[in-house]
């Protein structure tokens, strides 16, 4: 029996999509394989998240509830995860490779004496689990395993594990012991202010199912409205190339590529993006790529499933209008 503990991350009292994917994936795997799957929830108010975990097919849930988890503090959360992992002694501790997952995974590994493999996109189960992760920005892949001595911490890239249909279960909750941090709450790390950067309307880039992305070929910041309008119809997030970011048309957090975000949406629509290797690095694991570019020799067409040679500024408004029309008809 392989014992798996999944840290179920939440934002605003809701289970994150990236965690939902991991929970669903393992609950389905556990129907056929000797896996014990337990979810770990840490938060100020966990009822909604517990229900959602049940809907992902995971029954056993360890909960640590407390006001100290209201706002994110990496040391406090890491302590709680360490406590949960020490109690449960899993063979694998799995987290989503989100900002929070990345921030706490090595801290937890450091405290527990465990190793870590990050940004995994696939896994295989034989006697043990092995993990696949892209290296050199997706230009190669490595299959990685633990050393067989110690448990392993794994972070999984959002959108990477294939969608499955888990069967909902009634959750069985056990209360975890909250670690005592009295007098040691800050650990030299004091959170002063949190500034929201994204409005609730669009999903975060790394978790978006569809991304509409613009490059230098969009000609100016004012034309990003065309991308936003298309994104709104599709429920997509808007990304950008480095050229567009460096020109100041878009904030850096929206940059896709080797020195930006790595994304794996179902659909990536690249508009006025040439397809430089560093850009492809960030989006080559997208399932389907559509490219609109004036230049028939643009490298982006080499990886596009559907390419349009043409002017993005002219095509985008027509596409948005057609999609709107289509949605009205099918509603």
């Amino acid at each position, binding site marked *: 029996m392989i014992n798996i503990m999944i840290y179920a991350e939440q*934002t605003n009292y809701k289970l994150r999509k990236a965690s939902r994917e991991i929970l669903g994936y393992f609950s389905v795997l556990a129907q056929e394989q000797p896996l014990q799957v337990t979810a770990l929830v840490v938060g100020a108010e966990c009822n909604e998240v517990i229900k959602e975990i049940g809907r992902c097919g995971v029954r056993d849930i360890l909960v640590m509830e407390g006001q100290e988890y209201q706002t994110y503090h990496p040391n406090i959360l890491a302590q709680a995860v360490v406590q949960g992992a020490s109690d449960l002694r899993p063979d694998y501790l799995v987290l989503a490779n989100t*900002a*929070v997952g990345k*921030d706490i*995974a*090595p*801290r937890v*590994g*450091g405290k527990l004496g465990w*190793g*870590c*493999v*990050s*940004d995994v996109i696939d896994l295989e189960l034989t006697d043990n689990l*092995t993990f696949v992760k*892209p290296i*050199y920005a997706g*230009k*190669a*892949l*490595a*299959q*990685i*395993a*633990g*050393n067989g001595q*110690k448990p*392993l911490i794994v972070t999984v890239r959002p959108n990477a594990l294939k969608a499955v249909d888990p069967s909902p279960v009634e959750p069985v909750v056990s209360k975890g012991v909250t670690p005592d941090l009295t007098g040691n709450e800050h650990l*030299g*790390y*004091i959170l*002063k202010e*949190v*500034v*929201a950067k994204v409005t609730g309307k669009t999903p975060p880039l790394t978790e978006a199912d569809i991304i509409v992305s613009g490059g230098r070929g969009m000609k100016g910041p004012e034309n990003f409205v065309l991308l936003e309008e298309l994104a709104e119809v*599709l429920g997509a997030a808007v990304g950008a190339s480095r050229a567009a970011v460096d020109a100041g048309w878009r904030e*850096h*957090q929206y*940059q896709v590529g080797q*020195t*930006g975000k*790595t994304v794996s949406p179902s*659909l990536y629509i690249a508009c006025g993006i040439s397809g430089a290797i560093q850009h492809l*690095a960030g989006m*080559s694991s997208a399932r*389907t790529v*559509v490219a609109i570019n004036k230049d*028939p020799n643009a490298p982006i*067409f080499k*990886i*596009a*499933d559907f*390419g*349009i*040679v*043409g002017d993005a500024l002219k*095509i985008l408004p*027509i596409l948005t209008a*057609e999609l709107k029309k*289509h949605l009205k008809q099918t509603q």
Partner: protein
Amino acid sequence: MKILVLVKQTFDTEARITLDEKGQICDKDVNRITNPYDEFALEEAVRIKEKNGAEVVAITLGTEEGEKVLRNALAMGADRAIHITSNLDGLADSRKIAHYLSQVIKGEEADFDLILAGWVAVDNNAALVPGFISEFLQVPLANVVTKLQLQDEMVECEREGDGVSEIISLKLPALVTVQKGINEPRYPTMKNIMAAKKKPIKIINIKELQETEPYTLVKKFYLPVSKGAGKIVVDEGGNSVGELMAFFTEKRFI
């Protein structure tokens, strides 16, 4: 004030990746560079030095070719450098790398005030080494920082979360990993490149250090299968949109 900067040698982002007959990554003709994020860390350290005065020490763990990234660090303004020589490459187990770096830091460099690092290395895309080091050294860590300011015994950081930015204050000594946007790294001048040749690099062979096991093992490498070219349509007056709509329908996006 003493600032340590962790710099890693990585493959050039333009590098083509191939496998040799043993299935290992072929590194013969690959140009190597300083991990781009580590240049932001270096630049930030040198700016602090220029403003407040500080000693800046660059540290790398890697093969002999790693001297190149240390010379670059010295040319950008670091005062001296430490090279932990080893045949461990850029894909080696992160916890193991952190173990050796921490050991050296805990030794002669234990009086540091600040450690700066890149938030991620572009070869293994791990973002793990700094987190492990912060635990091994028991210092506070702020990750993915886009703004940094020293204040008395503290360093104030603006960091990127998912959809939020956070203002954080760390008590020194501390570790900060930096993100693009924090500064524009300088190009070393010819004069500084020459001067860098005379600056000291201390070499520590990894064998002199206390050993540790790797916690992860690479079973094999492989190259992604290319999907093959898709459909290309030349647009004339918007006629491509109909075909794209058909494609969306076929793929069930709409």
